[in-house]
C-alpha cells in the first residue's frame, strides 16, 4: 500500500508531465479503440456459427442476384421433398427496390433502397434484430403490426428519415430508378429501424410490391415489367446447426427446381466475408499498420516521459538505495508509475470513447460495405487499460532498467 502511495505521489509530483503523457495516451487509445471496434464487428459477422445458422440463397453467378418469385415457396422449405429431408426453422424473402424521392434526380440523399418482404419476418429473421433492447424490440413490433395492416406501410432507415426530412405517419412517393423504372410506389411511413445496422435500408410489404407489378402490366397493355419474372433477390433461411446447413445446401443445390438460373447456398457469414473481401487490404492496413503505428507512437511518448523522469531523479533513486530499496523495488516503482498513467489513461479514454460514440453521437458514421454506423462494444473498457498499460510497460522497461542500475557512488561523487 505504501508502495502504491509512493507511486501516486511521484505521479503527482510533476503533474504537468503526467497530464501531458496521460492525454497523449488517451488520444492514441481512442484511435485504437475505434479501429478495434470496427474490426471486432467485421470479425463477428464473418465468423462461422455452429448453431442457429443463417443461410443465404442467391443466384449462382450473377450479381445482383435475380431469381424467379416462383422459387420462393420451395426454397423456404429448403427444397425438401422427402419426409426425412431437413426443413429450415424459419425463412425470409428479399425483393430489392430502389427509388428516388425526386422524379428526375437521384442523389445520395434522395435515394432509398428498400426490401419488399413479409412483415412478420422482420423481427424473427432480419440480422441484428436479436440484439435490440426490449424497448427497441417493442417499437419494431409496433411498426411491423402497422405494416401488416397497411400494405403501403414502410419502415425507413434512420438516414432516410433524416435525408427526406419526413416523420412517422407522413407519406412518401418513390420513383423507381434503374431496373425499377416504371415502378413508382407511394408509402406511408409507419416506423423507423433502430439506429445502426439498418440506417440505409427500408422495408415494405411484399404484397404491395406484387400488386405494383400487376398494376404496371395493366397500365402497359399487358406488357410485364422487365423485372416481374425475376424480382426475388435472395432468400434467407435459418437452420439449427452446421450439419443441418450442409444438408439443406445439398438439397437446394442438387434440386432440379433451380437450374435456370442456378442458385447457390452459403452461410450468411460466408456471404458477408465474400462481400467484405473487396476491403481486405483496407482491413489488413487497419488491423496491422494503423494499430501498430498508434501503439508504437504511444510507447514512444510514454518512454520519453518516463526516461525524462528517471534522468531527473537519479539522485532520488540513489537516496532510496541508501535507505535500503533493492534495484527491483526501484524498477517496480518506475514501472508502476508508467503502468498507472498508461492503464488509467487507457481506461478513461475507452470509457469516454464508449460514452461519446454510443450515447452522444449515436454510433460512428462510416460507410464500409453494408455498414453505415459502428458502435463501441462494452469490451473496449477492457481494451483501454490493456493497450495503455501494455504500451506503458513496453515503453518504460528501458528507463526502469536504467533507474534500477543507478550507482550510489557515481551519483554522490558528482554531487560532491
Amino acid at each position, binding site marked *: 500500500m505504501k508502495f502504491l502511495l509512493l507511486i501516486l505521489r511521484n505521479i503527482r509530483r510533476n503533474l*504537468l*508531465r503526467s497530464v*501531458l*503523457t496521460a*492525454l*497523449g*495516451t488517451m*488520444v*492514441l487509445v*481512442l*484511435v485504437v479503440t475505434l479501429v478495434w471496434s470496427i474490426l471486432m464487428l467485421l470479425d463477428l459477422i464473418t465468423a462461422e456459427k455452429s448453431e442457429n445458422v443463417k443461410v443465404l440463397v442467391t443466384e*449462382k*453467378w*450473377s*450479381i*445482383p442476384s435475380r431469381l424467379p418469385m416462383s422459387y420462393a415457396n420451395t426454397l423456404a422449405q429448403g427444397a425438401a421433398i422427402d419426409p426425412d429431408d431437413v426443413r429450415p426453422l424459419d425463412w425470409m424473402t428479399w425483393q430489392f427496390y*430502389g427509388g428516388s424521392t425526386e422524379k428526375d434526380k*437521384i442523389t*445520395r440523399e434522395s*435515394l432509398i433502397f428498400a426490401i419488399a418482404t413479409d412483415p412478420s419476418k422482420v423481427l424473427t429473421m432480419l440480422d441484428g434484430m436479436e440484439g435490440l433492447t426490449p424497448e427497441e424490440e417493442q417499437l419494431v413490433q409496433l411498426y411491423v403490426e402497422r405494416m401488416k395492416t397497411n400494405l403501403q406501410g414502410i419502415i425507413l432507415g434512420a438516414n432516410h428519415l433524416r435525408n427526406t426530412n419526413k416523420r412517422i405517419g407522413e407519406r412518401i412517393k418513390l*420513383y*423507381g*430508378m*434503374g*431496373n*425499377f*423504372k416504371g415502378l413508382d410506389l407511394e408509402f406511408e411511413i409507419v416506423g423507423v429501424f433502430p439506429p445502426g445496422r439498418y440506417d440505409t435500408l427500408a422495408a415494405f410489404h411484399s404484397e404491395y410490391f406484387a400488386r405494383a407489378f400487376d398494376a404496371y402490366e395493366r397500365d402497359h397493355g399487358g406488357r410485364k415489367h*422487365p423485372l416481374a419474372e425475376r424480382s426475388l433477390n435472395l432468400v434467407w433461411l435459418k437452420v439449427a446447426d452446421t450439419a443441418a446447413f450442409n444438408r439443406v445446401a445439398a438439397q437446394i443445390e442438387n434440386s432440379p427446381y433451380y437450374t*435456370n*438460373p442456378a442458385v*447457390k447456398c*452459403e452461410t450468411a457469414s*460466408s456471404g458477408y*466475408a*465474400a*462481400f467484405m*473481401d*473487396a*476491403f*481486405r*487490404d*483496407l482491413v489488413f*492496413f487497419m488491423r496491422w*499498420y*494503423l494499430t501498430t*503505428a*498508434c501503439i*508504437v*507512437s*504511444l510507447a*514512444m*511518448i510514454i*518512454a*520519453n*516521459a518516463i*526516461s*525524462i523522469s528517471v534522468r*531527473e531523479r537519479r539522485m532520488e533513486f540513489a537516496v532510496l538505495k541508501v535507505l535500503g530499496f533493492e534495484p527491483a523495488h526501484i524498477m517496480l516503482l518506475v514501472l508502476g508509475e508508467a503502468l498507472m498513467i498508461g492503464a488509467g489513461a487507457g481506461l478513461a479514454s475507452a470509457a469516454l470513447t464508449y460514452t461519446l460514440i454510443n450515447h452522444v453521437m449515436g454510433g460512428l458514421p*462510416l*460507410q464500409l460495405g453494408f455498414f453505415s454506423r459502428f458502435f463501441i462494444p462494452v469490451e473496449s473498457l477492457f481494451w483501454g487499460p490493456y493497450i495503455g498499460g501494455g504500451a506503458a510497460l513496453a515503453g518504460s522497461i528501458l528507463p526502469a532498467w536504467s533507474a534500477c542500475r543507478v550507482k550510489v557512488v557515481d551519483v554522490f561523487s558528482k554531487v560532491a
Partner: protein
Amino acid sequence: MIETLLTLAAVLIAVLLAVGKVPLGYTLRSLTVRWRTTLLTALAFTAMVTLLIAMLAFVNGMKIMTEGTGVPGNVMILADGATDEAFSNLSVADLTEIESEPAIVTWQGRPMVSRETYLVVNQMIPNSSPGRPQRRFLQLRGLDDPLMAARVHEISLQSGTWFSDAGVRELKEDAYGEVKGATLIEAVLGEGVARELGRDRTPEQLAHARNRQRLDVGDTFKLGNRLWLVVGVMRSSGSTFNSEIWAKRALIAAIFGKDTYTTLVVRTADEQSAAAFCQFLKEKYTKAPVSPQVEKNYYASLQETNKQFLVAIIFITIVMSVGGVFGIMNTMFAAVNQRIKDIGVLRLIGYAPEHVLVAILLESLLIAMLGGIFGCALGSLCHGMSATSVVAGVGMGKSVALQLTVDSTIYAVAILLTLVLGILGGLLPGLSAMRLKPLEALR
C-alpha cells in the same frame, strides 16, 4: 493551397532563423546532448507521418484512378434512371438509333461506338486457403467489337491479342485438363485482375508459370463452370478497367443470363462536344429515354468513397497529431526544466525573452522535422504498392485494384503537419521559458 501554406511555413522558419539571436549551434547541441529524448520524440513523429503518408497514398491512388478513367470526348449512355452500369438495361433498337447521330465521330467509316454489357459475377476461388472467402466478385465487360471498344476507351494491350470474332478457341489437343475439341472462352484481362487471379495458383502451378506475378497470355481460369483462356492483358494500370475481364458479349450473355446491353459508349469530337451531346440526349432526343453522362464525369462521380476515406484519415490524423503535440510538449518542457540555469545565463548576457522563445521553437521544430523526414522516407516505400478497394458513387460501386501513389502534395502535407505540430508542441514550453526571470532562474 498546399504551395501557399508551404511558402508560409518556409517564411516562418526564415523569420525564426532571422529573429533568433541564440546561435543555432546551441540549439543543435542541446538536441544532441539529450539524444535519447530527441530520438524517442522524433520516432513517435516518424510513426505518425509514415501512417499519414500511407493513408493519403491510398486515397490519392483512388483519386488518380477514378479521374484517370474515361476519355474526355466519350459519352456513356445507360438506361433511363440508371445510376450504375450494373442496373442498366438498354434495348438494341434504342442503341441503333443513337449510333446514327451525327455528333458521333467515325473511324474507318464506322461510328466510334462500343456496345457493352457490364456484369458482376461470382467466381468460386480455387485453392482458397482456410479462413478466406470461398468466392469473389469479378467484373466482366462483354463487347461486340473489341478493337472498336479498345479504340473508344483508348486501351491498348500489354501482351497478347484481343479475343477473336467467335470469342472461343477450340483445343487442338488435350490440354488444361480438357480434351481435344473442347472450347475455351477467350478473355482479355486488366493487369489488376490478372494479378488477383494469379494468386489462386498452387506452388506447383507457379513453378511452371509464364509469369509468377500474374496470369499471362496462355493461362486459364475457371468462371461460371467454363474454362477461360487468357489471350491478352490490357495496359490498364491507373484505370478502373484494370480490374475488368473483357470477353465476347454473346458468350457472356448466354453463360450469365444477361441478354441486354447495359452501356453504350460513344466518341464525340472533344469534351465540349461530349457535354453538348449529353445535353442533346437529355433534352431533345425523343426516340428513347436514356441516361447519358460524360464518361469522365461518371468515373469522377465514383469518388464518393474517397471523400469518406479522406474524412476518416483527417480524423485519425488530427487525433494522432494531438498525441504527437503532447509528446513533443513533454520533451520541450523537460528541456526547459533541465536548462533553467542556461536560460538564466542567456538572459543575463543580453538575450531577450523572445530570443529564448525562438530558440525553443526552433528546437521543437527540428525534432519534429527529424521525425517527419524519416516518416516521409519510410512512407515513400508504399509508393507503387497495390491494394484492393471499392469505389462508389450513388450506385453499386466497383471493386478495383489500385496503386498507392505518393506525390509531392502528400510530402508537402506531411511536412506541413510536422511543422505545425513542432510549433504547437514548442509554443507553451517556449512561452514558459520566456517568462523566466534571469536571477530566479540562476538561483
